[in-house]
């Protein structure tokens, strides 16, 4: 047996054990004194809401295989021939009506999300640690200002940013997109909470008494302990930039720089009167291609964000 196979087997075994322990830790349903049929009724409620949740996703998957006329002409929740998926998919790499190329937008989105998300995480990790474990003049005031930043509507900032960008030539610059994506006050807040809950002061003090420098303490002791919180912030800030619409809408006039969201907004605006360009299938498939990486990322990293979201509710 290969090491990888063994690894996955032990992981599966561990997961099974965790599930069983979790079951032991939960209060048995019988103790709630439910009436017969309650579980069935509640499960039915869950199924109904799941149908509501999945309907648009299922619709997108099905209709990403259809021609424009079938998207409108055939029953929305079943397939219709011809199977156009690959044809439409190829069109994602073409500039079909002069608005721009989906593939290009997609790469832009990846670029903005990764650089903005990584930048945001670095800043939040440093800042969260600084605010959680140090005191300096104005530290409380600074932190209060950042918390107030949670309340500031993005649009309030977007308009003056646009004005300021016009002055410093950041209109149509990728930095104009990436720099604002690096400011995630929630991320800093989560990191600070995480440090307070998971890195005891005594641990840092012990390292100080041992004569380690602050930088070394941070890199060698604090940072490894911060990884789960860090992953949450990374995920949330990547997702935040991935979904961002209004900022790129305002600061980009060059279609080549659009992220997927703005490009799709533009398509949906033009689809009604684009004549032969057949933008609707592109809009549907483009939507599907946009959401798949995010769902995959969330599924892959779910143990991180679940814990991270918990922080938010604990800290409040």
């Amino acid at each position, binding site marked *: 047996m290969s090491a990888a196979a063994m690894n996955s087997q032990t992981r599966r075994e561990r997961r099974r054990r965790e599930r069983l322990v979790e079951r032991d*830790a939960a*209060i048995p*349903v019988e*103790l*709630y004194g439910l009436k017969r049929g*309650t579980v069935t009724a509640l499960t039915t*409620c*869950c199924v109904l*809401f*799941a149908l*509501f*949740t999945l309907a*648009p*996703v299922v619709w997108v998957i099905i*209709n990403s295989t259809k021609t424009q006329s079938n998207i409108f002409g055939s029953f*929305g*929740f079943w397939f219709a021939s011809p199977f156009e998926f690959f044809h439409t998919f190829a069109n994602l790499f073409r500039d079909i009506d002069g608005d721009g190329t989906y593939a290009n937008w997609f790469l832009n989105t990846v670029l903005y999300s990764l650089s903005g998300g990584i930048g945001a995480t670095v800043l939040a990790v440093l*800042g969260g*640690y*600084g*605010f959680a*474990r*140090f*005191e*300096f*003049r104005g*530290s409380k005031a600074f932190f209060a200002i950042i918390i107030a*930043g949670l*309340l*500031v*509507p993005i*649009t*309030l*900032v977007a*308009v003056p940013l646009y*004005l*300021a960008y016009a002055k410093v030539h950041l209109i149509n610059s990728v930095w104009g997109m990436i720099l*604002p994506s690096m400011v995630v006050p929630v991320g800093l807040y989560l990191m600070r909470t995480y440090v307070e809950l998971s890195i005891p*002061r005594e641990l840092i*003090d012990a390292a*100080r008494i041992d004569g380690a420098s*602050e930088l070394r303490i941070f890199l060698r002791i604090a940072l490894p302990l911060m990884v789960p919180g860090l992953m949450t912030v990374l995920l949330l800030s990547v997702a935040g930039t*991935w*979904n961002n619409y209004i900022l790129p809408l305002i600061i980009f006039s060059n279609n080549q720089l659009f992220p*997927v969201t703005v490009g*799709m*907004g533009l398509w*949906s*605006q033009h689809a*009604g009167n684009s004549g032969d360009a057949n933008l609707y299938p592109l809009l549907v498939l483009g*939507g599907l291609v*946009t*959401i798949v990486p995010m769902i995959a990322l*969330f*599924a892959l990293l779910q143990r991180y964000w679940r814990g991270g*979201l*918990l922080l*938010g*509710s604990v800290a*409040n």
Partner: protein
Amino acid sequence: MSETALRPSAPAVTPPSTPGKRRRRSAYARRQGRAGLAFVTPFMIIFTLIMIAPLGYAVYQSLYTTKLIGGTSFSGFANYSTVLQSGDFWDGVIRVIIFGGIQIPVMLAIAFFFATIFDLGVARWGPLFRAVYFIPFAVPIVVSSVMWGFLLDPAYGPFNHLMNAIGFHNFNWLSGNLMIPSIIIIAIWEWTGYNCIILYTALKSVPRDVIEAAILDDTPLWRIIVRIKLPMVRPAIIMLVFINTIGAMQLFIEPTILNNYQAGVVTNTWTPVIDIYSTAISNGQYQLGAAMAVVLAVIIVAISVASLGFRGRRREQ
């Protein structure tokens, strides 16, 4: 919050303080303060550049007016009085307040309902449903608006077929009367899962023995939920009301995209943010747009503070 001023180890490494200087803080504390400052400086710099400076700039700009002839000049609160007297702007504000006033309670009720079910484990396949409900959170609002635009399309949308099939002919989800309810449905679709997960994790942190004590006291399930669990997760609910309110007040993407499926309902002033966008960016009236943005921010802060005050009062009781 535990904020110990000095570490216990401080005296060991503190050099005698220089006489004459009235410094309370030891050199040790100062050195640490500098280290702390170094950690937060990168964030503070970008934060200042991206949040604080534009805010100041917005306020500054909002006090000026650009005329076609005569250029830009200081105009005091003229822009603000224009905004405050604009019926369209206030219509938009009222519209988003109605939107949020319905959407947020309904969504939180649904989210709490399911979070409770998952927490108690009283439905089958809880973990699966939990994952399914969270999917919309990974869908960009633009994309979900596009998808729902198709589903609700007045001519071809399957949801219209559905209404036709059950006897409502010429039903239009995106008509003037139903645009807000439709957007409410979309927003519920987008955000219930996220709110549900947060409530679920909060419910999970209610100590098990408290619930067991209630069971031994023969407390009926509904009473455990309403009298014990609900009050114990109130902080999480308040936080969610907060976040959702800020989001609802900035409603922009859904109506903008749905406008492409049913022209004429969503006007340039339909919500405050649409109003700001079309005023500042489309029409180039930056200063007026900035004033609108400031007014909107004040409204949002006022609502947030009011809800905080409400929380404070409740806590004292």
